[in-house]
């Protein structure tokens, strides 16, 4: 049995990373070009890692399934990126960002990792500005900040409502600079089909060329997965359509433990579902809660138009229940409250929607200020819904947005497969059971620019790495399995579309493993998922061949993996009989209906090993200790 060694260094929390950086072995600059590193995924984490490793002199191979590495879904992040700069002079510090993140994560993250994240947050802003990222500025020419949920300071840097885009383009351009120099080689339109493990170490990947269908092998000295989260297991989510669990799931099947898969984040402010044909949900940035007020009618069945509902008959439920944080409570709390008021029948027109109202802010600040802050979001809202949010309050409802769970990694960001490192949303380590707003961009870039480049060097310097070529029998074996699976999918020629299975799975996990989870519901899901999976393999329809651009085949492979992964996610949710962060178990709540943690039994990371039997994963636990931020029930009242 593998024991989980987090490898957190000893010493005071604020010196661990500094000490560790000195203790780690280095690779001599002249030797770095002898090492090949594969980076899968080109979002913030993957692009920043590939660029940084290339700059250091490693030979980097970068892969993405999109047509350009600039399109990874980090690009869609709207609101901002946190950093403990304290430019706002409002009492922020590395320690406060650390404290807020541990508390916001409901005490299910690793303290040492979070502190390191907070330490490097300040370097990220410096780096991005130097790259030319056009962050918002004040008239004096200095950087502007705003505040986000779960914090009482303004530490969020932003570029209009397109912060993710600008940060990603920064990392992308840094990577393109390395491509031009030849240190990074770019492989676009490639889907990772498997990790190749040789003598117990990750030594390469097998990919499918999405235009030609060719199955290709690439060998390396280390593999880095930066392949994002698994939110699309719910079918409808704010993720891009292509986001998938395949890379991390395939790695899991090869021996990488999957940690806390039940920790999924439901974002409170998304445009509500409006039809069966719907293919995705659209987020409205959390930053809107700085100036928008959330409310529903006090009476259920009140179908008057919002302008006809007087103040006294409106329930600004977040402001009333959470006096100190108001509309800026963390995401899990805002989402659950929206569900509660809608379940009481008080949603807009009895539907699953609440108002996000800017009327007061427009009156106070003027429409032009609101337009400058959120103009592009308002335009997007209008295009999708056909309603003008300057005159009618937005209608919003929670939707799946981010996944805190991911492959288990140690302090060096290495998974349980030596040589396989996992960064960004794809790992589990920094956000615990709930991620605070504007922290995903921070973590992705922290991992890629400032953490992995050190820890990966240590691995390369210390691991015994015999030369391995892509003609090694393990690669051939892997390629054969990949080809067989594709042939199997193509041979079914059934009567149901891939999307119909994905929708069925998504609805099931949304109902039973979404904002609220119960033992009975989770057991129902566990019964049903294998049935859907069997039905999929018996009656899915995939047209065309494997030797061409075949988007149905791409989707089928991804959905097949979601159908396996979903069972693990639900198993984890059932096993964790406590409420924490985004994981709300109905059996575990306070009298006021708030999440009730159980630190006696669940103050650990649940890291699951693949056993060969999808229904019988093996649980390993990494105990979490809180030496700095004492365990306490979160309160945002």
């Amino acid at each position, binding site marked *: 049995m593998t024991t989980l060694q987090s490898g957190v260094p000893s010493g005071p929390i604020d010196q661990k990373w500094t000490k560790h950086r000195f203790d780690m072995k280095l690779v001599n600059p002249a030797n770095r070009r002898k090492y090949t590193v594969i980076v899968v995924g080109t979002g913030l984490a993957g692009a*920043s890692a590939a*660029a*940084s490793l290339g700059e250091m002199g490693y030979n980097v191979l970068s892969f993405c399934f*999109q*047509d*350009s590495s*600039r399109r*990874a*879904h980090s*690009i*869609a992040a709207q609101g901002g990126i946190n950093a403990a*700069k304290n430019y706002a002079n409002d009492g922020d510090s590395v320690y406060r960002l650390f404290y807020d993140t541990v508390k916001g994560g409901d005490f299910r993250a690793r303290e040492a990792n979070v502190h390191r994240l907070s330490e490097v947050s300040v*370097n990220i802003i*410096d*780096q*991005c*500005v130097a*790259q*030319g990222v*056009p*962050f918002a*500025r004040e008239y*004096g*020419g*200095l*950087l502007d900040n705003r505040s986000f949920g779960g914090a009482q300071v303004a530490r969020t840097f932003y570029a*209009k409502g*397109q912060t*993710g*885009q600008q940060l990603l383009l920064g990392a*992308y351009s*840094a990577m*393109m*600079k390395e491509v*031009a120099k030849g240190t990074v080689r770019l492989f*676009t339109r490639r889907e990772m089909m498997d990790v190749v493990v040789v003598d117990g170490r990750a030594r390469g990947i097998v990919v499918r060329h999405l*235009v030609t269908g060719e199955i290709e092998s690439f060998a390396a000295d280390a593999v880095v997965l930066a392949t994002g989260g698994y939110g699309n297991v719910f079918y409808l989510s704010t993720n*891009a*359509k292509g986001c998938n669990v395949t890379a991390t799931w395939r790695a899991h099947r090869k021996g990488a433990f999957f940690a806390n898969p039940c920790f999924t984040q439901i974002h409170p402010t998304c445009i509500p579902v*409006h*039809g069966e*044909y719907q*293919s995705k949900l*659209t987020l409205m940035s959390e930053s809107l809660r700085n100036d928008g007020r959330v409310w529903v009618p006090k009476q259920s069945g009140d179908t008057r138009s919002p302008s006809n509902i007087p103040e006294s008959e409106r329930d600004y439920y977040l402001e009333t229940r959470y006096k100190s944080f108001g509309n800026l409570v963390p995401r899990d709390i805002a989402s659950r409250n929206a569900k509660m008021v809608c379940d009481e029948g008080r949603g807009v027109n009895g539907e699953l929607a609440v108002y996000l109202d800017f009327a007061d802010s427009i009156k106070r600040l003027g429409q032009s200020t609101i337009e400058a802050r959120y103009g592009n979001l308002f*335009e*997007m809202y209008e*295009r*999708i819904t*056909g309603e003008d949010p300057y005159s009618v309050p937005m209608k919003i409802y929670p939707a799946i947005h981010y996944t805190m769970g991911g492959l288990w990694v140690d302090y060096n960001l290495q998974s349980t497969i030596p040589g396989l490192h996992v960064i960004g949303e794809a790992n589990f380590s920094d956000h615990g059971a709930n991620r605070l707003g504007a922290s995903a961009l921070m973590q992705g870039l922290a991992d890629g*620019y400032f953490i992995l480049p050190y820890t990966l060097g240590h691995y390369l310097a210390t691991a015994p790495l015999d030369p391995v070529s892509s003609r090694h029998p393990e690669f051939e074996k892997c390629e054969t399995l990949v080809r067989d699976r594709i042939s199997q999918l193509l041979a079914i020629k059934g*009567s149901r*579309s891939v*999307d*119909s299975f994905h929708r069925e799975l998504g609805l099931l996990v949304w109902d039973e493993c979404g904002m609220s989870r119960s033992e009975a519901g989770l057991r129902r899901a566990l019964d049903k998922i294998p049935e859907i999976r069997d039905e999929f393999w018996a009656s899915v*329809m995939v*047209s065309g061949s494997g030797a*061409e*651009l075949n*988007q*149905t085949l791409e989707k089928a492979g991804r959905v097949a993996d979601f159908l396996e992964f979903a069972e693990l996610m639900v198993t984890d949710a059932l096993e964790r009989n406590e409420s924490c962060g985004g994981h709300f178990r109905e059996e575990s709540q306070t009298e006021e209906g708030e999440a009730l943690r159980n630190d006696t039994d669940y103050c650990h990371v649940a890291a699951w090993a693949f056993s060969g039997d999808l229904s019988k994963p093996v649980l390993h636990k990494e105990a979490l200790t809180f030496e700095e931020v004492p365990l306490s029930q979160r309160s945002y009242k």
Partner: protein
Amino acid sequence: MTKTISLTLKVWRQKSGNASGKFVTYQVPTVDVNASFLEMLDVLNEQLLLKGEDPIAFDHDCREGICGMCGAVVNGQPHGPQRKTTMCQLHMRQFQDGDTITIEPYRARALPVLRDLVVDRSAFDRVVQSGGYVSVKTGQAPDANAILIPKQDADLAMDAAQCIGCAACVAACPNASAMLFVSAKVSHFALLPQGQPERQNRVLEMLATMDRERFGNCSNEYQCGAACPKGISVSNIARMNRDYLSSKMRLS
């Protein structure tokens, strides 16, 4: 009550880059007006699939107008009729019952068709590789507030930096020029102090790559600006031309 419309689609079908293509007509009854354009294609594709036909291949990913992956020519206009709107954000309420909609891929020498509506835009990446960056390595940066940037410059740079690299500008241009794309990147850096040290080389190299990639040149048609889903201004092209001229003179 949901409103639906009935449409006739003429869609460009082409098996692969080497195959010849043709328009195929499809009837799509009962399209929900609240559906997005891509969701309308999803519904059609599902029907094709279950009939045993190949679904229409089209690129897309975020479906919220920011990744730049989607895009095709709809009724003669890249991304369709709605101004400043990507194809994924175009909604069916923009169309009338009984409309015929023609959908074809971007057509440009530099953007070869891979299948149906999917084109190869890797030329854009190569243009960026030739200079679309600031040469700063991780760790070399000074404190973020050590670089003062007047708000109006930062805002203008941001306006240019919003480009999503979708290539609608190329598709709209009668010369299939990439001037709007290249000038947006050049302007983004030209407007910022961080971009100054490499300013001259950047504009020369990026334009040389643009030519090498077989994009056409600019003849001031301004179709690009009209088609741009992010509203990138053609004034960026003027700025780039000035930069090009002065760089050429200084370096020669």
